[in-house]
């Protein structure tokens, strides 16, 4: 009991998550800067930014409901942390692996988006309201292909547990190749979920001044920032477990493999971010519904058929 509590709190749980999120944010910013011919921040910059924000004054808008305004950042950070615990880090099994945890993770990862929406809506300010509605619109665009793309490997593996899926593909490594279209879809939808360029219309700085979080400041904003970077770590970990399930069976080697895989995924996301312009919200909707959703649907049907044909 004590051991599992320590696992959740320290390693590979929350302490590791926060450290690794800061590292990933550093990698994200540094590589992005190098791609743009800039020097980029020093390694401690994410931590320094966070500490600075925590020390800043908090201003709550007069029209906002104070409790909701203060609770939303915590709720969104907590849900992302809970989602992260279901991804395998040390070895092939996650800290809290249970049947159906993939579905739970998907729902937990939806909460930050909803919190963003509520935060913007609760701020009662024109930019944040527009940002909030864009956040919600974008969620309706990417949620369907995201769910289908994340569930496709699960359908082939016949289990709804992330650790179970990882174990299945470890036993049948070649089947991973079948899921490549779903990997492509999930990379783009994940980019959209994390509201990164080219899908950052909800927080477009040059149009709506940062969108839903425009009224947030101080430690509340720090919590939302922490949500964003832990979400990056959590999504990268889940993607690594689902689509790059290569394990050795030795716990520390698997841990090294995990670091490598998540880094590769984050680097791919940085590449996407650096090479594209922000597309409009209507273009986002069109792209997701007319390109990615049919692709994800086809992947799902193929996986269903293959499962029958291969006799799994």
């Amino acid at each position, binding site marked *: 009991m004590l051991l599992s509590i320590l696992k959740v709190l320290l390693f590979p749980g929350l302490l590791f998550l926060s450290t690794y999120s800061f590292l990933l944010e550093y990698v994200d910013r540094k590589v992005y800067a190098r791609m743009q*011919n800039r020097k980029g921040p020093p390694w401690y910059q994410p931590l320094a930014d966070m500490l600075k924000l925590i020390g800043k004054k908090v201003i709550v808008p007069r029209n906002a409901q104070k409790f909701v305004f203060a609770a939303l950042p915590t709720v969104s950070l907590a849900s992302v942390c809970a989602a992260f615990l279901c991804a395998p880090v040390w070895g092939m099994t996650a800290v809290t692996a249970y049947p159906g945890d993939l579905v739970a993770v998907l729902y937990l990862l939806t909460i930050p988006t909803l919190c963003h929406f509520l935060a913007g809506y609760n701020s009662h300010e024109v930019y944040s309201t527009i940002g909030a509605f864009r956040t919600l619109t974008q969620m309706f665009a990417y949620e369907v292909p995201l769910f289908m793309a994340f569930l496709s490997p699960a359908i082939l593996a016949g289990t709804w547990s992330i650790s179970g899926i990882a174990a299945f593909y470890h036993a049948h490594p070649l089947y991973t190749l079948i899921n490549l279209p779903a990997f492509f879809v999930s990379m783009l939808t994940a980019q959209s979920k994390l509201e990164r360029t080219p899908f950052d219309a909800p927080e477009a*700085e040059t149009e709506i001044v940062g969108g839903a979080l425009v009224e947030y400041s101080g430690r509340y904003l720090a919590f939302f920032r922490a949500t964003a970077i832990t979400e990056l770590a959590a999504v990268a970990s889940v993607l690594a477990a689902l689509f790059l399930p290569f394990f050795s069976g030795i716990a520390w080697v698997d841990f090294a493999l995990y670091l490598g895989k998540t880094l590769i995924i984050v680097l791919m996301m940085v590449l996407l971010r650096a090479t*594209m312009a922000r597309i*409009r919200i209507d273009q986002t909707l069109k792209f997701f519904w007319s390109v990615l959703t049919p692709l994800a649907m086809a992947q799902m049907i193929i996986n269903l058929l293959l499962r029958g044909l291969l006799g799994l």
Partner: protein
Amino acid sequence: MSPHDKNKVVVPIGPQHPSLKEPGSFKITLDGEKVERAVVEVGYNHRGIEKACESRNYMQALYIIERVCGICSHAHTSCFCQAFEELAGLEVPRRAHYIRGIVGELERLHSHLLWLGVAAHEIGFDTLFMYTWRDRELVLDLLARIGGNRVNYGVNTYGGVRRDLEPELMQDILLVCDHLEEKLKYYADLAMTETTLIARLKGIGVLTAEDVQKYSAVGPVARAAGIMADTRIIEPYGVYKEIAVTPITDDHCDVYGRTLVRVKEMLEAIRLIRLFVSEIPAGPISVRAPRKLPAGESLSRVEAPRGENVHYIRSTGADMPDRVRVRAPTEANWHGMSHMLEGFQLADVPIIIAAIDPCYSCTDRAIHLVGDGVNQLTDWEQIRLMGIEQYKARGIDPSAIKIREF
């Protein structure tokens, strides 16, 4: 008030907004994400430039004119010097014309590179922003070597230029041109092929040829609508009398067209700089200018990177101008702004505003109406007749040219 009005929001873009580099107010009435009405309010940056010139002597006024614009300072001084030289009857040496041309084209390069970066930033393409601004540094370094400053070079003076170009400096200009040409070809290629860039720029901020005439738009905005409004071509001055500029137009009529026009103009600027450097004549760089101007008035036009600059000087024979009028290109482009914004999406607003390359503080003027409130109207026909008179005095007879009816 219709029942739908409660669904409409007014979004204030400005006076302070991340997408605006200078204060200016745009009140955008939104229907969903669509812009239904756009009200442009400028005037947050009035500096009293014209009045400041009128209360100083000509030499001091030149320093103020240099500071009308932070980007196209050379175009403004060229224009003002031309007006002065016309009144004073000065013959500017050929070498001075060439040096003005080289600096002017370098300025066009750095202005358009700056614009490309700002435009990329407005549509969230920060990588292109960083790349173009890195390349712009090369041009700025050259300008700093020519004039001692990165933006207000102070090259122009009445009757010529103040600084000569050394041969090794001209070699370095050519080297930078070689380097930039390669990059610019890449950006041109990027503008033609990058999907997200085209998706964001194509079909927005439309201003057709008719609208350009109606709203008197100038510069790349007019050229992107297929109208050859380039003063260097329609009324060549200085070095452009000897070396012709290739006309660059586009028929997209939108922000994408303006981007293509600017990128192609940069390549053209490089071609021109090479020609100027290879054909620059030897000789003096300036002639002595008088302190006082004879009584009279003169109007001069110069093609700045953003469009046509118009400067007007009225002299009473003193060493101070009686009236100075500076019409920066942005002043002509504001009129079509509401028309360009309406009907497009909120997301397009920053890039449509940026697409005219607005220069707020160059533009803001206070207008004092003289008289007892009675309007004075001069119709197009009268203005045209006055124009024909003006040109006849210079030995050109434009009365045979037919103008289009709208």
